[in-house]
């Protein structure tokens, strides 16, 4: 991959016209500018996007072990936010709070506020099905279901839409696969097993699966950790395209990756949010010495 952002016309490939133009984003001029920037420099985009998620004073513990201390941050809308930090720093835990995947862990306990569209998602009355539809998730290991490519997406759609006409479903599947830049590779083998795809294709299928239910946020937990550099580049390219329409949060160990694709960076260390800011600022002029040490590779 060249590393430069594709022009806006290419970014919007596969995105329905209504979605693209009805929600025209005033900051899009910045994307245009960015296409000319090289990949080595952190991305520059306006930092004053409205927040999609607001985390306030979040404490998390597993049993008696405290894993997050007093974390407060805002995730900007239609931007890519990267959570970075050494293993065990709590970044994945923070991510999994956003769709309440931690609920599966019996000893999980949290305090604080996690506001999505003005509503605290930690409440008992929250419909997890609706929450997880709005906040899609992609995992470290690609985890397509052992069924056909088509059924992987149809299953996700069916969960939320109920019975729908076959032609409508076909359209949704195609659109999701196009958005995930996978359509051209799988269009002749939609009935083939998803497990026959390469790791990178499987990961893009998982992204398509998440996109098919029309989320507002897509979270990715080290999505490229098991992929080769070429597959990684394709995923990064894809995330950049998607960031014009979706808010994206990515946990990554790869500093170069965070530099290449993120607008905002949050650095976690030992369960605390050390610093969060525009990617350019965090990488070029970190406010805290721990951040500087981490991104320069002194530890972690």
């Amino acid at each position, binding site marked *: 991959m060249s590393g430069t952002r594709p022009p806006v016309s290419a970014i919007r490939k596969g995105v329905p016209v209504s979605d693209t133009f009805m929600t025209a984003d005033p900051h899009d001029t910045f994307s245009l500018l960015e296409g000319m920037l090289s990949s080595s420099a952190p991305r520059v985009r306006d930092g004053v996007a409205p927040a999609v998620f607001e985390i306030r004073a979040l404490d998390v513990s597993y049993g008696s072990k405290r894993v997050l201390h007093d974390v407060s941050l805002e995730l900007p809308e239609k931007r890519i936010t990267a959570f970075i930090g050494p293993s065990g720093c709590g970044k994945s835990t923070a991510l999994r709070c956003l769709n309440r995947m931690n609920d599966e862990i019996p000893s999980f306990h949290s305090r604080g506020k996690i506001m999505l569209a003005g509503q605290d998602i930690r409440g008992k009355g929250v419909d997890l099905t609706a929450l997880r539809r709005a906040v899609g998730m992609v995992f470290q290991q690609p985890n397509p279901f*052992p069924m056909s490519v088509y059924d992987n997406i149809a299953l996700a759609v069916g969960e939320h839409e109920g019975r729908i006409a076959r032609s409508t479903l076909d359209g949704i599947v195609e659109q999701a696969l196009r958005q995930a830049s996978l359509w051209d590779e799988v269009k002749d083998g939609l009935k083939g*097993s998803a497990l026959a795809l390469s790791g990178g294709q499987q990961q893009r299928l998982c992204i398509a699966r998440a996109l098919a239910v029309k989320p507002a946020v897509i979270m990715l937990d080290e999505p490229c950790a098991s992929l080769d550099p070429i597959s990684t580049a394709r995923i990064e390219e894809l995330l950049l395209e998607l960031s014009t329409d979706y808010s994206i949060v990515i946990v990554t160990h790869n500093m170069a990756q965070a530099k290449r694709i993120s607008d905002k960076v949050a650095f976690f260390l030992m369960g605390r949010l050390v610093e969060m800011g525009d990617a350019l600022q965090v990488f070029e002029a970190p406010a805290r010495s721990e951040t500087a040490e981490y991104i320069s590779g002194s530890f972690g």
Partner: protein
Amino acid sequence: MGSITKQGNRRIGSSIGIALCWAASIAVAAVCLFIIGYLVFQGWHAINWHFLSTDPVASLSEESAGGVRTPMVGTAILVLFSIVLILPVAIGAAVYLAEYMDERWWITRIVRIGLETLASVPSVVFGMFGLAVFTLGFFKFLSSSGTEGGSMAFGRSFLVASIVMGVHILPFVIKVAEEAIRSIPKSLRQGALALGMTKWRTIRKVVLPAAAPGIATAVVLGMGLAAGDTAIVWLTLGGTMTMASDAWWKFSNWLPVLRGAGSTLTTFIYFNSPAGDGNSPGAAFGAALVLIVLVLVLNLTAQLLFRRGSKAGS
């Protein structure tokens, strides 16, 4: 020098250990091959179209002893009915044990102990117990009436034997099915939950389809177990070598057949073998060969299903 000697001893020790393990595995294969070889040698000449297509006759002479047609049919009925009867229970229990039960709950321990106990009960005890229960008048609908006007049921029929056999193979099928469900990677469940599926929908739509080959393996192995059991058949299918109902092949006779007594390959072997009640070793070995082939085919099918399943799951 000292360390070198020690290493030498250790190497000799490990060579002996490996040799013993090798010998043990070869011994197992040899015993298995010897039994099958002996069965083929003894039973081969008994097997012909006549043997497979005639019904058994209680006779003292080998020539007029008849064949294994109705015992084969009996084995098929018993195996199919016992597995179909217990399958919903087995899958339900396996899902609950694998997905919902917390190993720290006391009820989980009780269920586990219950399953292990059930699995270790000898089949003759199940047979005896089944006979005691199903001869109660209440269960007359399961078997042909006992003595005319009596208050007891006959208590011996394909239906009764299928139920008792079902209980016998139940813990085994549950165990294998539970392992199949547990072997589905957690990442698949997480993926489904992250899409907003409830736990139940995740199990139904993702976990069970993925575990289907493993569950099929459990079913086929359970069928093999049912096909091979003798004591339950002997006690609860009537202690006879022949099918009680005439014209069993007529579909309209399905109820009398199921409520009637009969035999399977295992009881045919018993009643013909000099070791049992009969004096027709040739017929017994012939039936034993048929049975072994049937069980081998079932086990190979299970292996095939399992291999295909693990290929799809990786």
